[in-house]
């Protein structure tokens, strides 16, 4: 019944985009399965918004192609968009329409929304829909866009920094809505700078840099590639320990040593045996540390 191809909500093959002399995307191969919440990370100018624009058929790929549920949006945009809802990085809406009119307009164009859910979302995001959009702050206009997209209950949500400009309470409301969407089996592509948000909501994460996907995987997989941090507290001054492969001394205190272990932990444990160790703590690398780790090193594809 459902062939492997159509079980992919997003699929790109060698997607490349050149704007004049600038290479914005370089042979992107992305695959997002239906029902997945995929985080899309990268610095400014990495190509995240370009990817979404190409997927939506707003811009034309230089080479390669992208498909949404098996439909190429450049060739057949209307069919491709029926199952998709998009939230842009900034609210590009009509200033003279009120919030209610905008929601109605966008809903009708989509072919219908879940009105009860829309009302619930308006409550949840505390929107004053009587106000004209020009009288709303940028964050509030962003909320209108967000509610419009979530209310469609579309099979695929393409979100480009949707919570930029939202306060922490609304950030929580957003996370709640995403988890509701996930429970309903909707697919989400979340492009974001808020690493905590991505960490909290996403199943898989892809890291884009200079138009290439340099890393991809679940949080667990990504953590394995990052270094583990071990803080050791001694009873006196820290002893000198022999250098071990994959173990890097990241910091020294009065009686502490901080190790970053990117390989096996056992050699370090063995070398600590017999030392006057008072305390030992470890923590997993956060997404931020993984992210920065990738951007410190020179670019090289890491299998994910």
């Amino acid at each position: 019944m459902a062939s492997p191809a159509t079980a992919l909500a997003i699929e790109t093959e060698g997607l490349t985009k050149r704007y004049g002399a600038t290479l914005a995307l370089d042979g992107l191969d992305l695959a997002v399965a239906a029902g997945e919440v995929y985080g899309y990370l990268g610095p400014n100018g990495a190509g995240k918004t370009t990817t979404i624009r190409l997927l939506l058929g707003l811009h034309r790929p230089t080479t390669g192609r992208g498909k949404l549920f098996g439909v190429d949006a450049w060739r057949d945009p209307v069919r491709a968009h029926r199952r998709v809802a998009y939230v842009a990085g900034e609210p590009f809406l009509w200033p003279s329409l009120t919030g209610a009119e905008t929601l109605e307009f966008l809903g009708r164009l989509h072919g219908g929304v879940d009105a009860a859910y829309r009302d619930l979302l308006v409550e949840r995001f505390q929107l004053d829909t009587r106000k004209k959009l020009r009288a709303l702050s940028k964050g509030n206009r962003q909320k209108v866009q967000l509610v419009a997209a979530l209310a469609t209950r579309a099979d695929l949500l393409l979100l480009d920094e949707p919570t930029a400009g939202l306060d922490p309470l609304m950030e929580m409301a957003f996370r709640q809505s995403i988890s509701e969407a996930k429970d309903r089996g909707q697919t989400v592509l979340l492009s974001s700078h808020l690493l905590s948000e991505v960490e909290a909501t996403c199943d898989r994460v892809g890291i884009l840099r200079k138009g290439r996907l340099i890393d991809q995987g679940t949080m667990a997989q990504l953590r394995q590639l990052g270094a583990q941090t071990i803080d050791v507290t001694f009873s006196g001054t820290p002893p000198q320990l022999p250098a071990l492969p994959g173990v890097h001394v990241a910091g020294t205190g009065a009686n502490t040593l901080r190790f970053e272990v990117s390989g096996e932990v056992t050699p370090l444990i063995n070398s600590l045996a017999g030392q006057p160790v008072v305390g030992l703590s470890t923590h997993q690398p956060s997404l931020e540390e993984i992210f920065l780790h990738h951007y410190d090193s020179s670019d090289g594809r890491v299998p994910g």
Partner: protein
Amino acid sequence: MLLARRAFADARIRTISFAYLFAAVAYLNPVSYRHTYATLSERLQFAHSFANNKAVVLFYGKAYDLLTVGGYSAWRVGGILSILAAVFGLLAAVRALRTEEDSGRTELVLAGMASRAGLYSASLASIGAQMAVLWAAVVLGSLLAGLPAAGSAYLALAIASVVPVFAGAGAVASQFGATRRVALELGGAFVALTFVLRVIADTSTSLSWLRWATPLGWAEELRPFTGARPVVLLLPLAAAAVLVVLAGRLQDRRDVGTGLLAAVDSAPPRQRLLSSPTAQALRGERGGLLVWLVGVGAFALIIGVISKSISSAGISRQLRHEFAKLGTGSVITPKGYIGFSFLFFVLALSLFACSQVAAARHEESDERLETLLALPVGRRQWLGGRIGLAAGAAVAISLCSGLLGWVGAASQGVGISLPMMLEAGANCLPVALLFLGIAALAYAVLPRASAGIGYGLVTVAFLWQLFGSLFGAPGWLVRVTPFAHVGAVPTQPFRIVSAAVMLAIGIVTAVAALLAFERRDLMGA
């Protein structure tokens, strides 16, 4: 200084367009007058028939001396250009003050080293510079037409003196209105009021003192070429100073980005016209379309009313010869006059078509189109809808002009039938739809340049025909432009073949536009 230069640069397109228009009007009127009324007796006839015709006075104002080229210029050129100068002053002020604030740029500048007073003075300085450009344009046009230098300079000054007063009014309106639209409405109402006062003063003898109550009347009272009275300049200067200072004081009393009149910012939802992108576009363009409809209709009404005076004038052979050169047929009858005047409506409607394409481009450059096209809305559906909307509005405007022209003519007892006038209106459509298609194609291929291409082509095509026939260029060269293929209906027959060809080209280019639009990236600003 830097801010003033920036403000002047922002306004350069409007300033240059108005300057061209002013120079052209200042040049063409005296030249044509000298040609067509070469002898004193012809001029006496002209003075008798036109000067006392109330409908003409309504439009051009009171004439003091129609027997000399200078006096004619003061009447005709002064009359038209003082209204345009008023509009210019209003637009310049609203753009420099309200629009900049609404866009948020003012906030940005004020957060730096500029003060509110400094920014305000800079805006005024740039408007002063624009006024100087217009003054120079009128002087140039008059000098080229052979008018004496001192008189030309004074005429130009009389026209330019209107600008500061209405700029001051625009400044005050910008303080009250919270949006550009409200500021323009308030200022526009003021312009209309001053115009009505001038009309009443010029057409009734008992109320002629009202001329002193309106800035447009002061421009008349300055009497270029007919006994100059420079002391009257004190009036516009004083009025401008009062308005400018008032606007400055009002500005200090309000927050940046707001208006003194509270804007209507919330409303119960009105759900009509939201079912499709085209319907929503109509909803957004409603106001502008109404302005075009009323404006063109009003002009048509005036043309119809004025046409009556043509029949009772003895038009000289020279004049007939001039018009024959233009290839517009006989103008010595009311029908002929209407047919000739409606040729300008062809220009207006073509400019309207370009403005609709420019509005569509605006949706794209503000990136709202991205929001629309990310939904299940096809590119063809959207652009086709906007082209269709523009075409439908053009049909409505052309028929309205025909209808109101008939009303005007019939009210004066001119014997012209309604179907004939509707045909005159519909005659404007083929050229306008041709340019609609071409502008749409330009938008589909070169969106950032499309407004310039559209308006530029229309202007060039129109002037090509006008100057080509006036200066006797060979027929085949003049016929390059579509304007040469329009007959002056109702005196000349409706040229069906030309109309069909132009319509066909319009349709072909529009279809090409729809296809080409699917091939390019969406481009923001």
